[in-house]
């Protein structure tokens, strides 16, 4: 839908719309997208409870390979899990060194965006390990 916003200095025609709980707006050649302030979807909650070190599905898709197992210690950048979506493979890598404490998915699982796939206890080399909060 088109809207005209007028002020004393200028007027701007813009396109704006809510689509499935998000606010989309296009003007001056740019598109912006905003989540609603009050997150009430289950998806949002799940993401919030994830620890920074956990591996979270960045997109909906299928788990095609799990490359690490429980109690395994991994380095930053190690491939942990392979997902497929839209016919392309994506490898999820560890963002920090850590120990795998839980694997929440199996090969073949369809997972949703924001789902915690692998839980990782961070191992911080310099400070000698950071307990999870």
């Amino acid at each position, binding site marked *: *839908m*088109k*809207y*005209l*916003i007028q002020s004393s200095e200028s007027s*701007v025609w*813009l*396109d*704006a*719309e*809510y*689509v*499935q*709980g998000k*606010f*989309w*707006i*296009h*003007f*001056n*050649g*740019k*598109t*912006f*997208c*905003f989540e*609603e302030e009050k997150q009430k979807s289950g998806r949002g909650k799940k993401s919030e409870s994830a620890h920074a070190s956990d591996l979270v599905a*960045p*997109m*909906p*898709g299928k788990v*095609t*390979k799990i490359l690490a197992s429980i109690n395994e210690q991994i380095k930053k950048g190690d*491939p942990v899990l*392979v997902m*497929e*979506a*839209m*016919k*392309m*493979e*994506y*490898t999820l890598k560890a963002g920090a060194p850590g120990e795998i404490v839980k694997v929440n998915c199996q090969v073949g699982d369809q997972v949703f965006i924001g789902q915690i796939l692998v839980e990782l206890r961070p191992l911080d080399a310099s400070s000698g390990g950071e307990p999870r909060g």
Partner: protein
Amino acid sequence: MTSQSSTQRIHRLAIANRGEVAVRIIRACEELDIETVLLHSEVDVNSRAYRMANKKICIGPAPTAESYLNIRANINGAIASGAQAIHPGFGFLSENANFAQACRDEGIIFVGPSPESIRQLGDKVSCKALAKSLGLPLVPGYEGEDQSLSKLLSEAEKIGFPAIVKAAAGGGGRGMKVLRNIEEAKELIESAQREALSAFGSSKVFLEKYLDRAKHIEFQIFGDVTGKVFHLLDRECSVQRRHQKIIEEATSPSLTLELRRKMAEASCLIAEAARYQGAGTVEFLFQDDEFFLLEVNTRLQVEHPVTEMVMGVDLVKAQILTAQGEGVFGHWASKNQIRQPHGHSIECRIYAENPFLGGVPSTGKLGTVHWPEGPGRRFEYGFESGDEITAYYDPMIAKVIVWDETRLRAIKKMKKVLSESIVFGVHTNIPYLQEILSHTEFVNGKMTTRFIDKYFSEPIASQLPNESEEKIIREARSLVKASGLGRGKSLELDSPFTKSWRGV
């Protein structure tokens, strides 16, 4: 394909594809007075092609193996609809010789080359063998039958790193990985095999030396019913990410007349040797004024519109006419002259992905979609407002094509067109495309296939609104809410706020 001497008028044609290419084929059929039948999966009922086709037949559930890649389901659908011909589009079954064969066995015209041509050229290994026998230059590599991991690893070492692993039955960048060293090679080869199996039904891969500053240049070829193969000059598609093309243009800004002539000759030579009929593409890598034949795509190419724009042809109609046994482009042969491209054309592929998160797929229901029409602008799209972009299929949701008299003007026009294009509901790569189009190396036409790796491997920075933009956004938000269009509520026409906004 019909025999060369007879013509068979097609009255009804089935489309074994989806999205924007299905729409493209429907348009061509409409102009040729041919009825269309869309062979679609269960989830693709909310799409533009579904709304446009004369008939629709559901051939199976969403997963491609059960619908768009299922040969039997497509053939049965076509027969049930009474279609005389099937157009496979690109991707899916378009380069599948067994599908072309199945069509022939059932007496259905396959709009494309013969199963024999597809087998010979489409299988990258036998294509290389043919090229070798014709004396055409090839990238060194391994394409043996021994597909064991140990053999592939030792061959990769022999070729030397960087090397590249590719799906033998592949295309479109799937099942393709660059191997930088032996340590990474094992994991990447296995991953390529899995992708190849998932996307093409065969895990067979081959290896090649990776040329690290090459350009991707390809020639559009067309075999007509007389057995003569024409070329329609070249396209450059060096802007690729994970071997998937993002921006293509016609013609390449990098070729001299002499090189263009040699590559065109090589393209026609290999296609004629395989008795090629219909539209096809011969792909080359081009580095240090040397060219190497990469592969032949035995189908219509995603980027065919840029050739159409500068050559003044309609490749999809030409495909269908050829399938009917009619001559096309014949008048060129008699003139026997070098065809000159008219101006310059650029295509940008619009992917449903989040450019601020490194291009992860973005799925969901489309809100407003607006493509800004104008002279020298062309939009190929398969989904409109209200349609759903799902995770089952390719993330390409549209193509934006521009034409202008020079390359620089075409770039400028593309930037303008993209800035006015609106897609709500899913994120798109438009901000990413804008940055690429502004990059000096692209503007100067010097980009190689490493361009994206070199300059755009990181997610681009989020666009945050500045202060005055913030203000506008706040106002717009309250306007939209007041209008009753927030949070899925329907428009209330008697709202006291309706006067403050204008619907278009």
